[in-house]
């Protein structure tokens, strides 16, 4: 059993004996050919940064350096925007059916290379291979496939008989779903006839650079897609560039507000996908076993580093104890460890900075009087890790009930009536997602109607589909990505 204990060393033995013992089942890294260094992708070419700056991208689970990447500065931003501007004329003049075929090609190449890309994403991001393989990559390919089909059907999308593209789109994406967020940004932008300059997050630049290579394989005209790895300064320079027509950002609410101030007074169209503090509401008539699974996937999917995570559990008082007990039992069976292992449920936290933020907020939770429980699992000695954690005795005043933690931490609150559940669910500046668990259809729909949230999942959570619009109310941002609605963000509909 010695060799088997490796993946299960973190597992505590509770009444159920913890997780079953599994032999390690790591996905092979050999399917990914990582270069020692990568450049910026501007005008169809990989190039160094103008000032020669580079940065290292690390594996969050081992802290090894994966590669060295060129770091874009203001000069590079200008070069990329110019390339996108030059490409815009011919690209937007192409018949929609021809643009569609480029996007279909991209979708097909992503499908073909999905195993490689899943491993790459897991290496750079730290999330379990189970998620990149079964969730991220299939959605990425589906997103390109879906928007490919819109490119020649824009006249049918409900935005007038001949909707026009905006021009050059500046797109800044986060590190939690690197390639999926890229797909959400680039696919509709290109389908509508725009050209793009995209900045991936500094901790997860690699899949975007592999995507640049896919654009070349697909024969995409130069300058239509430009990829600028870099930090916040590059993002700020990009969104502030006078020659961009559209700004799309996914990330924190604080940065989103800064961008909104930056584009004020310009002609730039803006869409923002920001933070959340999703309420997952469990009524006493809910199928509780199913609800527990939904709570788990709602907050522990991608280590809780999800803007639409169900980070606040609102459970009806009469079943609160039963639900929390079942939840804790379930959490002791989760496997935390090597993200490349196919049995891993909980991977690494993406960066030391993010881990520090989670730690700071959970410490505040304890200090403010909430009761902390963490799944009794042993954390690996290298890398960034955080055990699945549940807070009970949480009040609405606690920071852990108000601020986005962006980690595997659930705050449990209780309610007595549906009206109280709605009031508590809406008591946040955010409004991205919510969940409702009940067997009664009319109750689900009545509650859904009152929730100020852009996505409401009934008896399910964290469901995504390219045809389904996603986005937030209030300070979770504005605009929608996905579906017919997602086209509006990239069309001149004034």
């Amino acid at each position, binding site marked *: 059993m010695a060799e088997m204990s490796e993946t299960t060393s973190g597992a505590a033995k509770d009444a159920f004996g913890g997780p079953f013992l599994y032999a390690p089942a790591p996905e092979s890294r050999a399917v990914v050919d990582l270069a020692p260094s990568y450049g910026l992708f501007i005008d169809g070419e990989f190039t160094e940064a103008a000032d020669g700056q580079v940065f290292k991208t690390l594996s969050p689970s081992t802290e090894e350096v994966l590669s060295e990447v060129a770091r874009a500065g203001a000069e590079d931003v200008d070069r990329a925007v110019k390339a996108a501007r030059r490409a815009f004329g011919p690209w937007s003049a192409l018949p929609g059916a021809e643009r569609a075929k480029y996007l279909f090609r991209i979708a097909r190449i992503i499908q073909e290379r999905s195993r490689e890309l899943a491993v790459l994403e897991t290496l750079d991001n730290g999330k379990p291979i189970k998620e990149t393989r079964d969730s991220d990559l299939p959605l990425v390919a589906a997103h390109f496939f879906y928007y490919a089909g819109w490119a020649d059907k824009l006249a049918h999308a409900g935005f007038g008989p001949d909707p026009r593209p905006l021009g050059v789109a500046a797109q800044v994406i986060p590190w939690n779903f690197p390639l999926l967020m890229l797909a959400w940004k680039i696919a509709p932008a290109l389908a509508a006839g725009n050209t793009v300059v995209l900045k991936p997050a500094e901790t997860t630049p690699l899949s975007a650079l592999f995507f640049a290579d896919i654009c070349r394989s697909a024969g995409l005209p130069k300058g239509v897609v430009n990829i600028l790895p870099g930090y916040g300064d590059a993002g700020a320079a990009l969104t502030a560039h006078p020659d961009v027509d559209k700004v799309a950002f996914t990330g924190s609410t604080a940065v989103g507000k800064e961008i909104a101030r930056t584009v004020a007074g310009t002609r730039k169209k803006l869409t923002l996908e920001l933070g959340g503090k999703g309420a997952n509401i469990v009524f006493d008539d809910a199928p509780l076993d199913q609800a527990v699974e939904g709570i788990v996937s709602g907050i522990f999917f991608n280590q809780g580093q999800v803007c639409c995570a169900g980070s606040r559990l609102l459970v009806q008082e009469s079943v609160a104890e039963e639900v929390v007990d079942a939840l804790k039992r379930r959490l002791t069976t989760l496997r935390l460890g090597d993200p490349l292992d196919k049995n891993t449920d909980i991977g690494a936290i993406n960066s030391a900075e993010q881990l520090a933020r989670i730690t700071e907020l959970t410490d505040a939770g304890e200090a403010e009087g909430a009761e902390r429980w963490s799944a009794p699992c042993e954390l690996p000695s290298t890398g960034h890790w955080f055990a699945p954690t549940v807070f009970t005795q949480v009040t609405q005043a606690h920071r852990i009930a108000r601020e986005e933690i962006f980690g595997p931490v659930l705050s449990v609150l209780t309610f007595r009536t549906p009206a109280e559940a709605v009031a508590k669910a809406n008591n946040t500046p955010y409004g991205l997602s919510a969940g409702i668990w009940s067997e009664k259809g009319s109750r689900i729909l009545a509650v859904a109607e*009152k929730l100020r949230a852009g996505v409401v999942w009934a008896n399910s959570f964290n469901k995504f589909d390219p045809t389904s619009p996603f986005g937030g109310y209030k300070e979770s941002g504005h605009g929608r990505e996905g579906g017919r609605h997602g086209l509006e963000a990239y069309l001149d509909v004034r």
Partner: protein
Amino acid sequence: MSDKPEPTVRLSVFKTYKLYVGGKFPRSESGRVYEVTDSKDRPLANAPQGSRKDARDAVVAARKAFGGWSGATAYNRGQVLYRVAEMLEGRADQFTREVAEAEGLSRAKAAAQVSAAVDRWVWYAGWTDKIAQVAGGANPVAGPFFNLSSPEPTGVVAVLAPQRSSLLGLVSVLAPVLATGCTAVVVASEDRPLPALTLGEVLATSDVPGGAVNILSGRTAELAAPLAAHQDVNAIDLTGAPAELAVELERAAADNLKRVLRPADAEGDGEDFTADPGIRRLTPFLETKTVWHPTGSLGVSGSAY
């Protein structure tokens, strides 16, 4: 005796054209064939001359395939239709020759028809998961109800393919039926059936489930009559029916209230298949289903922000 054998010209292998029914390639149960000629009346091949029984068998196959095909996700149907485009592209040369011979076109003009046919599959591949958002939607009824209308495929569709445009016209009428989730029984152009019969070979290798598309060749009037009158056919596309026949078929179709798509003009076949097809060939084969559900009341207004 000479040292070297006489050089011989290799004799080519002719193809036996067959029907495409239930994912298989049967001959007509009637054992009949008819000679197909090119535009200058030179013989090209024999095509099976399908019978009423073949038509009925095809309906059975289409009905059997309907559950699986209509139950597949729209995304999956889109992938399959795109796969048809990929397969057709790979056999472009063969289709260019067949279309050129069938329609008396130059090689370049025939190639353009084939390219347009490939693109037509791509166009409809993109519609499978979009038509619901264009043709359906939430209805703001004056009451506490969730009310949503969604399009659903009507069932088995009999398709009389255009008589002149042997491939592009055929694809233009077949692909939308498949895109909606319906299954099809196609009657190929009477005089130009060969590209249609070859298309069956493409469909058979494109992940299209057997029976979702069935292709018959023969006399249009003979095959169309039993289809128009068939009680297990939900809709009929009369595009390839000559004017007098179209009226007769529409009348027969009324017996079980088939959805009928009439020919575009009195000629029955004057349609320009190179034009943007829009959604006019999708909606005739879709039923709209509206679901009501009470939303209940919480008796509170909730937060206004």
